[in-house]
């Protein structure tokens, strides 16, 4: 994380663009620009800015956004209140579609069901999520009028309303992910179906179905969990296009806007926080490995 902080700081300090000029526009006078630079602390040398940023970060102070003039912590918390539930919903959709599809396809290998399901998955993998998003808007918001086309009312407007505005984007994000996950599940289950212990289980007298669900599937889950972890990390801030299509105030758009506006402090904080969250997700994935494969935790 320290490395990430140094890299992002160095990259941002060589990026052309002056936050003060961006705030004040083309009619600003030199003394006004100087006043705002002093107010933002941009008149100090770079090493001092880095140290004071890191110092504040060490005690949990993320600083104040240049453009919004509010604490970055507040800004990030508000955006995470959109991105985190959205990522969770998308991953839930992805898992609940992908695992049954993958397992069923594997157990019917080579037959019509398998071909149809994997054909659909191939279609899903090649489906751009923003295009799917636009189709969903056209169908459910414009034509049927069931769900809002865009925007996020905020959690204080009622959780049902908030969930309604997150449903379409979660589907748009989750389905293409599900397609990838289904393919991974299928190949992983196929691999374990060929293992000796599955044959032993069948030889003990278990039905095909029991052997599949009790022995093959749990053992096939390690690569699946890895992919889920990767997908979740991606969904936290890599969803800027979907956020734009649905006008959701998520972390991806915050990052994008902050870079365009040269709101350097927000970009720096976000990079460090996201690096931290990827570490956390990886840690959680490791814990889950231990749960499904006791051999790993005993080591």
């Amino acid at each position: 994380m320290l490395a990430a902080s140094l890299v992002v700081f160095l990259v941002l300090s060589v990026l052309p663009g002056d936050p003060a000029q961006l705030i004040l526009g083309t009619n600003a006078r030199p003394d006004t620009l100087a006043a705002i630079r002093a107010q933002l602390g941009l008149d100090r040398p770079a090493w001092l800015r880095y140290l004071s940023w890191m110092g504040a970060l060490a005690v949990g102070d993320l600083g104040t956004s240049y453009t919004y003039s509010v604490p970055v912590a507040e800004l990030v918390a508000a955006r995470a209140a959109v991105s985190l539930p959205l990522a969770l919903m998308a991953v839930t959709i992805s898992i609940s579609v992908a695992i049954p599809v993958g397992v069923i396809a594997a157990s019917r290998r080579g037959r019509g069901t398998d071909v149809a399901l994997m054909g659909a998955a191939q279609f899903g993998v090649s489906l751009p999520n923003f295009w799917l998003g636009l189709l969903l808007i056209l169908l459910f918001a414009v034509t049927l009028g069931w769900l809002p086309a865009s925007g996020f009312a905020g959690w204080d407007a009622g959780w049902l309303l908030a969930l309604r505005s997150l449903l379409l984007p979660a589907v748009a994000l989750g389905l293409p992910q599900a397609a990838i996950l289904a393919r991974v599940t299928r190949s992983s289950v196929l691999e374990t179906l060929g293992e000796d212990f599955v044959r032993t289980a069948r030889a003990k007298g278990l039905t095909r179905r029991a052997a599949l669900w009790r022995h093959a599937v749990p053992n096939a889950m390690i690569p699946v969990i890895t992919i889920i972890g990767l997908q979740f990390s991606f969904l936290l801030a890599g969803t800027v296009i979907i956020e734009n299509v649905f006008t959701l105030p998520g972390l991806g758009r915050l990052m994008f806007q902050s870079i365009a506006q040269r709101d350097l402090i927000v970009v720096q904080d976000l990079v460090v926080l996201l690096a931290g969250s990827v570490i956390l997700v990886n840690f959680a994935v490791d814990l889950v490995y231990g749960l499904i494969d006791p051999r790993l935790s005993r080591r």
Partner: protein
Amino acid sequence: MNKIIAAALAATLATGTAQAAKDTLSLGMVLEPPMLDPTGGAAAATREVVYQNVFEGLTRIDQNGQVVPALAKSWTISGDGLVYIFALHTEAKFHDGAAFDCSVVKFTYERAVAPDSTNAQKGLFEAIAKTECPDPATAVVTLKRPTARFLFNIGFSDTVMIGPASAAGNKTNPVGTGPYLFKRWVKGDRVELARNEAYWGAKPAIASVTFRFVADPSAAAAAMLAGDIDAFPLFPAPETLDQFRADKRFTVNIGTTAGKTILALNNARKPFDDVRVRRALAYAIDRKALVDALGNYGTPIGSHYVPGDVGYVDLTGAYPYDPAKAKALLAEAGIKPGFTMTLRLPPPPYARRGGEVIAAMLEQVGIVAKQEPIEWAQWLDQVFKPQTDYDATIIAHVEPGDLDVYARDFYYYNYKSDEYRATFKQYVETVDPAKQVTLLGDLQRILSRDEPNVYLYALAKVSVWKAGLRGMWPNQPVPANPIAGISWAE
């Protein structure tokens, strides 16, 4: 029995609400304001939310671009044009209950020119020598020199009245004297305003208004079609307009703005220091075809001034589309076919897509125009700053009536004309309105003759709103969405 009463009650309530005219409004905007204090930054989005809604100045600009009274009831101007005496609406109150009187005027104007001021339009206040308060209901503003647009300037969004007690918090909790008060801001999504029931002026029809921020053009079109948004004053998806025109639920309006789209040239760099080259470029561009190709409904212009501005002179005939003449001028200036120049293009479609069209037109006269897309931050840093590292760029200047930029010591065009500066000084210091109009004409003619930039077209205001909505501004003389004049038809 209770059930029946409840049902009857529910029925009455339902019909009651159905009969009352709708009094809420949701308005779409492309960009979210970074903050809500119009006196501390240059974002047009800030103005489009708070100006004339939350904040008011002594004067205001109406939908025709004219100066009308606001917090000042009336004014008198001394014969030499130096002293302005304003009679104030002291019955006005700030939303936090603070009184409005001359001390607020003095505070506002002095705060804007203070050394630590972050007012993006500090220049607008520069002419003010002092503000005095003979009594609370009268403000006497003395100028250093006569200033032609002074009443316009103090009606602009950057010169609105700010309460001494609430000034510091205006960025996130704006407190003004206007007909609407700030309710809440869901960052990244919306700002909500509510009618100020204690407003000093006429009571507006709309009780609550939501500004929704939708950056993506197709999302904006979908939100309008789905009925989530009632009006989109600067609609970003002109390619979908035919669909809205065909739909009886919507009204489509094409109006004007103060935005001058230009092909800005670096007059300090060869060969653009040669007026023949600049004129050749002007002849080489077919403005009508450019606007049609972009589908943005712009109106061709002939100088840095738009139709509707005070004293506008139509100079669009000065450089008609004439590639042969352009080639001849280029040859005369010693420019060989195959000459290469760079177009640095900021993100808006008028620049990026406009750049493609203009490059194709320049190719017809033997100029190779390389297109270089750049970010807005880079544009400000590399094109606009004093090093002016560019050949040409496409940009829309949205500040109304900004003929002053050509008279500045430094501006990124690097245009230097003593004649223009002298004429501009004369215009600014003229008190007689008729003489002002004559001089404005002269300024436009000098620009057309010298053609420091190639003047392309005035940006259109393309709006879509629900049929039944009344009082939307058809044009955008200044960035503003005043809600007070808007209502729903019965």
